[in-house]
């Protein structure tokens, strides 16, 4: 009767309350009937539809038009069919940027999820005082406005008197005085990665920690009494319950990191952004909006939408199918 993903501890709990198992089908089916779900999703649908309906239409319409500043003022574009898509897809810069962004996304998402989960587990292990301190620190990190965070990072990585160079030299990692962290694309984007991961960790930590809160103590204790080591407890009891949350966080991280704009734009600086360090977010902004080529920008937006959908489809599919197991 129990679903395949619920571990053995659940069987114990189930056995303890046999009456409930017989009651279950009756209760749920009564609720399942009716138009209730439609009413539940209506407010969300209405809000999103009212605000985003027109922008979505605009985006699709513009991707098939030549729409620059002149057309913006005239409120009328010139239809050009697939020309915008064609010009973007034939542009080698687009493909280089895409590859660079995919690698960048994988690195960011991987680091964020791993470090975030480890920290969430750490939160469980420390005493409550440290826990509150650490979480408050994380929330402060999370709450820093991007402009300010970037500026502090710029100070820290300044090649003249940055803290990072100072510390690395003092710790005898070699002489890092006057090391220019923005000299090469790899170094530049690594810094952007560090900045983004640093800013994204708090969300993962708080969410995973909240997920851990849903793991029933009884199940854990039952498994421990059975003689399971901490790693097995984690694997068999905790991970299955956290699975949907991991899937969500991963899919969200992929989506956000693929299209990230603010951090690379501010950290690298508008004067230093060029085709050698474009990421999809900065590429879209420069090619579409900075140059006032709105039609092209719309085409790139749609292509980005397709790309990120492709990247995250595995995770999204798993999430969508999740409730079918039940």
């Amino acid at each position, binding site marked *: 009767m129990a679903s395949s993903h619920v571990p053995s501890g659940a069987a114990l709990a189930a056995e303890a309350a046999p009456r409930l198992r017989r009651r279950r089908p009756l209760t749920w089916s009564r609720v399942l009937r009716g138009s209730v779900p439609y009413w539940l999703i209506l407010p969300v649908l209405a809000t999103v539809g009212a605000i985003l309906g027109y922008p979505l239409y605009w985006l699709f319409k513009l991707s098939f038009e030549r729409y620059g500043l002149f057309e*913006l003022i005239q409120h009328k574009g010139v239809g050009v069919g697939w020309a915008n898509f064609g010009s973007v897809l034939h542009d080698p810069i687009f493909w280089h940027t895409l590859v660079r962004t995919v690698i960048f996304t994988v690195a960011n998402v991987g680091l964020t999820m791993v470090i975030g989960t480890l920290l969430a587990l750490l939160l469980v292990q420390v005493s409550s005082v440290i826990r509150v301190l650490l979480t408050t620190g994380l929330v402060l990190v999370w709450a820093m406005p991007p402009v300010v965070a970037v500026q502090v990072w710029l100070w820290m990585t300044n090649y003249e008197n940055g803290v990072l160079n100072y510390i690395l030299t003092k710790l005898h990692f070699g002489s890092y005085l006057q090391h*220019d962290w923005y000299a090469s694309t790899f170094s530049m984007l690594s810094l952007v990665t560090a900045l983004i991961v640093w800013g994204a960790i708090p969300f993962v930590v708080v969410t995973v920690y909240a997920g851990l809160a849903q793991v029933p103590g009884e199940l854990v204790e039952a498994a421990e009494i059975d003689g399971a080591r901490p790693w097995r407890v984690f694997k068999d009891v905790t991970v299955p319950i956290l699975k949907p949350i991991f899937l969500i966080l991963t899919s969200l991280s992929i989506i956000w990191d693929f299209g990230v704009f603010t951090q690379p734009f501010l950290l690298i600086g508008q004067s230093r952004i*060029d085709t050698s360090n474009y990421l999809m977010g900065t590429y879209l902004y420069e090619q579409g909006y900075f140059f006032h080529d709105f039609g092209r920008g719309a085409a790139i937006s749609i292509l980005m939408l397709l790309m990120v959908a492709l990247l995250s489809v595995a995770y999204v599919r798993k999430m969508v199918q999740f409730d079918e197991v039940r």
Partner: protein
Amino acid sequence: MKARYVASFALVAALVAVSTAAARTDSPTRASASKITVWLQVDAQTGWPDLVATTNAAFQKAHPGTSVDVQYQTWPDHLGKFDATLAGGNVPDVIEMGNTEMTKYMAAGAFANLSPDKSSFANSRSWLQGLAASSTFNGKLYGVPYYAGSRVVTYRTDLYRKIKAKAPKSLAQFTSIARKLRAKNGKRSFSPVYIAGTDWYFAMSFVYDYGGTIATFSRGKWHGALTSPQARAGLAAYKRFFDVASRGSKTGTEDRPQPYDVFAQGGAASIVGPAWFSCCVGKKYKTVTNQFVMPGHKAGQSMPGFLGGSDLAVPKGSSDQSLAKDWIRIFTSTAGEKTLQAKGNIPNATNLLGNSVNERAAKRSWFVPTAKNWVNVENGNVLRTMLARILTGKDSIKEATSTASDNITLTLNRP
């Protein structure tokens, strides 16, 4: 079941249709203006709020019943906001535009034609060439020059005194001063003249000083002109000067770090930049700071400085163009310009120019090609890339200028 399915899709479709239809109706025309909206940059709010106040007071006296709503904008986002209003309505009546931002919008037809009213604006006959050029497109006037800023050299009087140097009168003199300064201070990171490698505002001054230009317009097309012998000579002179005088990053930009920060930390004996740099040289060197005009390669002549500045324009969709023009008239009147001058800016007309270092530097100036796509060349960092490659030696001057010139020709001529 099926009915519900149909109903839910109909609902979503209806929502999209409603929001689209709502967005398609024509905008209701504004009631006759009892208020005009003015977009000024935040520089005015912190720099000369008194001028704004007196202008508003004078305007309201002349037009009782009309109020002025001054909304302060920030440089990074004001164009994005302007674009949104151009698309959706609600354009300001007066907008401050950077002089390099004007051309694109003039070409797109965003502004009202002010040519018939040109003579009604104070000192319009002697407006600064650099500003007037930025407000003119296809022979018509679309903006009123507001104020300008030039580039000067801010220097350490104590260090110069040590090597018994006075303000140089030629590039050669300046170079020898730089050499002496370096001999006196052997620290690796010390710059006799701190320059960031890709500071194209400074580097292009050399090009113009040697008689070259960035691009020319002939027979209906733009032609990148950095491949001319004069331009190349200018860039060669820039490279020579940089190698002697600056330890700044060859690929770095002129805002990171800020030159005045380098100066304040004792990392430079001179820096090149706007005159207001003297504000931020730090407590330590405040009393030993002064400025002179950057000398050109011909003795006695200053190097043409990039003339930055702002213009005031009236968007076409303004609710009342004549009121808008009136406000601008008062704001840029001779009295207004004198107030701006007192705050350290360069006024908009040659007959108002005083003798400050800033204003003397403005006597010889250059401006970017007034092409509608020029902004794309700037945003594409074409010149910066060229300078970085020249200074690091990755490309010879010949190669780098060819690449950049072709790029410029392509970008400027794009429809």
